[in-house]
């Protein structure tokens, strides 16, 4: 039944296995073989994977409940015991961690075994997956274009049907933006709802794992097995309330707020057209659409590009050639410890990582700390207050996910600021720590457009419900991207 396997979403595949019509082993091998073919295609493939399992792990062939053995691809930066975990960086090439990230082991225990690791921007810094130390990934809708980033390998793999579902991480938009550019669903849950233990850190106060899937139901199914307190992550919380697979088909009485600051200037016309058409669909489902204001949102990106690099410069201090990864010795100074640190970091980090380490170190350095880091943290307070005020008037906030459709490889690599603007609509929610999902809402110039739905902290179930209802009305067809 391999011809039909590709058409099955993750939840549908799980139902087939539960009904005894499909074996978990067959499904695992189907996706393993597809991923291996992409990996072996080198430059002519999509470049989605940094590792593919040689065979199914012990126990994965039985289809254990509740997820029945539907195999999972995870972003390179999740530590996976004995499996290369490099965060897209040459400085960690071939690194085999001695332990597995909590969220990956939870999902494996729930019956979603690891079958592949996916490509990403180095240390999750980027919006195109071009910053990977292992070469770029490509967008299955148009191979000359980027899949977005930093979780671009996961997004392209799910869109192309090379993975039934995948994990990514989102710091300022790294799940939502690639989901939008690849025409799939991507969700950043409320900060603190998912353990960060075993995620190679970029910016710890912002990083959060989440699902990339073909539809909203699959995203909810994965997420409900991810959340929960982990003693190994002091910022993780017991998820209040319950998550379930969403069933809502209507939006009667749901108040959707459209912030003018994130839905006008700077957004491409074709993206706005698809966004506005989706709002009409939402109105048809019974939603009330009103304008809201987030006065500080236009300053979010500036604050983010202080806070995230500052945290990154501290987190990435651990890559010094001592405990793991690459070590390069300066031949002229072989006995000099500091020269070993600085040469290893020079040779191991790519240009964008160097830029952000420098930016963060600069922002935290003596004489600049208050002007940059201190003020950025105050802006963060104002942004969170803006959202709280808006959620007094509306239930959810909707915006375009990304300002443009997928752009061409190389188009923005020479201009860091142009690349950073990709996160204009997603960064405010990250700074506020609130849940946000991107679902595909149409095409512009033949390329997918995403609509973002955000809610108050821990309203993840409501966000998923609304996304599910809207998804049904939009009827987006992503099958053109399947390979």
């Amino acid at each position: 039944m391999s011809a039909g396997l590709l058409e099955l979403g993750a939840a549908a595949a799980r139902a087939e296995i539960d009904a005894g019509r499909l074996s978990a082993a067959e499904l695992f091998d189907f996706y393993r073989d597809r991923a291996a073919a992409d990996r072996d295609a080198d430059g002519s493939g999509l470049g989605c994977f940094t590792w593919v399992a040689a065979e199914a792990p012990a126990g994965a062939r039985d289809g254990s409940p509740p997820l029945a053995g539907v195999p999972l691809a995870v972003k390179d930066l999740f530590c996976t015991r004995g499996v290369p975990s490099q965060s897209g960086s040459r400085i960690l090439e071939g690194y085999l961690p001695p332990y597995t990230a909590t969220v990956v082991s939870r999902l494996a225990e729930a019956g979603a075994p690891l079958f592949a690791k996916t490509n990403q921007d180095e240390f999750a810094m980027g919006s195109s997956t071009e910053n990977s130390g292992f070469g770029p990934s490509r967008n299955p809708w148009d191979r000359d274009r980027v899949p977005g980033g930093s979780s671009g390998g996961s997004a392209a793999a799910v869109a192309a049907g090379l993975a039934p579902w995948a994990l990514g991480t989102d710091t300022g938009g790294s799940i939502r933006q690639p989901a939008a550019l690849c025409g799939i669903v991507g969700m950043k849950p409320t900060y603190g709802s998912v353990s960060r233990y075993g995620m190679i850190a970029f910016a710890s106060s912002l990083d959060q794992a989440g699902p990339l899937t073909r539809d909203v139901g699959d995203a909810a199914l994965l997420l409900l097995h991810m959340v929960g307190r982990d003693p190994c992550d002091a910022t993780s919380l017991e998820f209040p309330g319950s998550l379930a697979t969403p069933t809502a088909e209507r939006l009667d009485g749901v108040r959707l707020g459209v912030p003018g600051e994130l839905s006008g200037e700077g957004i491409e016309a074709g993206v706005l057209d698809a966004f506005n058409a989706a709002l009409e669909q939402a109105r048809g489902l019974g939603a009330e659409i009103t304008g809201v204001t987030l006065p500080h949102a236009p300053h979010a990106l500036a604050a983010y590009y202080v806070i995230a690099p500052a945290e990154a410069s501290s987190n990435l201090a651990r890559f010094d050639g001592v405990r793991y990864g690459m070590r390069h010795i300066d031949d002229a100074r072989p006995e000099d410890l500091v020269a070993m640190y600085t040469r290893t970091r020079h040779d191991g980090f790519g240009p964008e990582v160097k830029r952000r380490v420098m930016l963060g170190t600069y922002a935290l350095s003596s004489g600049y700390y208050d002007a940059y880091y201190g003020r950025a943290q105050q802006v963060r307070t104002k942004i969170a207050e803006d959202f709280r005020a808006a959620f007094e008037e509306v239930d959810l906030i909707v915006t375009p996910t990304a300002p443009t459709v997928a752009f061409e490889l190389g188009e923005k690599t020479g201009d860091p600021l142009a690349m950073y603007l990709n996160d204009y609509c997603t960064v405010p929610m990250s700074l506020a720590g609130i849940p946000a999902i991107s679902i595909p809402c149409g095409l512009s110039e033949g390329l997918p457009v995403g609509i973002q739905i955000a809610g108050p902290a821990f309203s993840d179930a409501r966000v998923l419900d609304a996304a599910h209802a809207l998804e049904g009305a939009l009827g987006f067809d992503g099958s053109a991207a399947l390979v």
Partner: protein
Amino acid sequence: MITRDEVLHVARLARLELSEDEIEPMARELSAVSDYVATIAELDLDGVPPTSHVVDISGALRADEPRECLPREEALDQAPSAGEDGFLVPSPQAG
């Protein structure tokens, strides 16, 4: 404009060697980004408390009980250079 000397100072703080041909582009790019982020200086933020973290994590303590930890061999396994007792590095006294 961030100067060459500032770039070299920050690189020293970051323990990052920069090649001669990386210094000028780094100065230019850091200047562009820092000009952009400096727009937050225009905001009136007097008396606004900082947010370092959205989750209230005070009191996240666990019982201080002995438990299994990573075996030494495993901890040392991925090191570029290790002896029986620890990580090996060039002498901090040299250089």
